[in-house]
């Protein structure tokens, strides 16, 4: 594609060149706006991303090689030592697990007595993270497993610490995960101690989340642990999201806001777990069922996001829960 048709010495007043630039700029702006607003372009983009997979694979190669070389170079003594440490860790977790299982069984019995819904067992799939750096302004990960391994768009992604994010695109061999720290992401949360419901938004950095629009009267303290509430139907209830930092009044002075330190390890280079077989509870009959163990389910549901809408489309996650505070904000001054 010859782009510079003129002689080697560029003429300063080359109108055609400027026009070509303008055409490209307009094209770029149109693409950016369309992509930013989501919709069909985002879907089309997921299709085209199949084409860049070899690039991802190649870029991930050095670190994969490095890992395998390190593993090959490990000595017997090292392996024996690792084995010993891991065995001990397994013993401890096994003991803890046994206690938890008793509690879970008891919980199940009590739940059956109360006539509540039974909670499904955790069914997970292990997936490796493709070790590449994506655009630093966006909080995304690429997984080394795709539709061929049964990964589906919308699956929740967790690690040992807690919730990491959700799958937003799946190609045959890779999947893109939107992390909860992405500014486009929102999670319906509840405070583990009191059951107060909040929305937690991504802060755009790997170690930062925001809880906004916390009512002044809510029983929320710094240091409270936030769990997924299960509302919205995207994430099952009860996964750790993070720990609340100190609360401060927001710009309107009518609500509080706080930073949240994520519970999961959100940097790359580890394996993650994909939740499988979680079917969001049917929307109509019992919206409270998902947010188990929350007292005052019905009134809280009004301020919480409506089931099925909020988190399903990450980009448009904010409007609903933010609706109330904005109205108040305009009314305050």
């Amino acid at each position, binding site marked *: *594609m*010859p*782009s*510079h048709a003129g002689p*080697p*010495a*560029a003429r*300063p007043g*080359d109108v055609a*060149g400027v026009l*070509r*630039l303008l055409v*490209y*700029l307009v*094209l*770029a*702006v*149109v*693409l*950016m*706006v*369309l*992509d*930013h607003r989501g919709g069909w*372009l985002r879907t089309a*983009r997921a299709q*085209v*991303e199949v*084409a*860049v997979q070899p*690039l*991802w694979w*190649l*870029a*991930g190669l*050095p*670190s994969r090689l490095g890992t395998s070389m390190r593993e090959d170079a490990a000595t017997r003594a090292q392996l024996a030592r690792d084995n010993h440490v891991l065995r001990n860790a397994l013993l401890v977790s096994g003991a803890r697990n046994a206690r938890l299982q008793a509690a879970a069984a008891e919980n199940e019995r009590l739940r059956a007595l109360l006539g509540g819904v039974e909670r499904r067992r955790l069914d997970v799939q292990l997936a490796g993270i493709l*070790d*590449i*750096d*994506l*655009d*630093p*302004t*966006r909080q*995304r990960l*690429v997984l080394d497993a795709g539709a061929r391994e049964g990964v589906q768009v919308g699956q929740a992604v967790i690690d040992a610490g807690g919730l990491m994010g959700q799958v937003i695109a799946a190609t045959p061999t890779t999947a*893109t995960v939107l992390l909860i720290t992405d*500014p486009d992401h929102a999670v319906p949360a509840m405070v583990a101690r009191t059951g107060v419901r909040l929305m937690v938004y991504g802060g*755009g950095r*790997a170690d930062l989340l925001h809880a906004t629009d916390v009512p002044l009267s809510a029983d929320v303290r710094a240091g409270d642990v936030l769990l997924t509430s299960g509302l919205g139907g995207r994430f099952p209830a009860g996964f750790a999201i993070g720990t609340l930092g100190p609360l401060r009044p927001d710009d309107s002075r009518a609500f509080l806001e706080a930073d949240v330190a994520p519970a999961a390890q959100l*940097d*790359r*280079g580890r394996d993650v777990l994909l939740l499988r077989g979680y079917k969001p509870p049917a929307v109509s009959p019992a919206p409270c069922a998902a947010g188990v163990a929350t007292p005052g389910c019905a009134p809280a549901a009004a301020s919480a996001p409506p089931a099925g809408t909020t988190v399903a489309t990450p980009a448009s996650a904010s409007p609903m829960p933010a609706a109330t505070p904005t109205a108040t904000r305009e009314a305050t001054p």
Partner: protein
Amino acid sequence: MSRSRNGWVLPVSLLFALLLGLVPMPALLQPVRPYWLALVLAYWVLEEPDKVGLGVAFLLGLVADLAFGALLGEQAMRLAIMVFILDRFRARLRFFPVSQQAAAIGVLLVNDRVVGIGIHLVLGAVQLPWTYWLAPVLGMVLWAPLHLVLDSLRLKRRG
């Protein structure tokens, strides 16, 4: 310019630049990752303007946006602007000594950061921390070696 050339260097160098943008780096070094794609593209615009121009820059930008998972069109726009300016001053830049060329590339990379910030401001996206302003400096420093390497690859050695 009657020397025979290695035709494969152009696509391979661009592909390599794309890969270098994706290769994982420690979090501390991430902000100073130079914009390899812009550097390599700048070299080709200066040396072979018949092959690399606005169209190539735009398409390459789109591929990079897809590969980096960035906003579609962002890098296409940034690279198009950069190539346009380079093309305008090509006649002069080509005969600059390498040190002055590097300075000009540094200014272009800074301009590129400004354009990027502008795009993010307009769309309300996240801004990068200030440490990312160090990347153009590193890009400037890397211009001379990159120029040397690509030159030696592009022009077949004789004898």
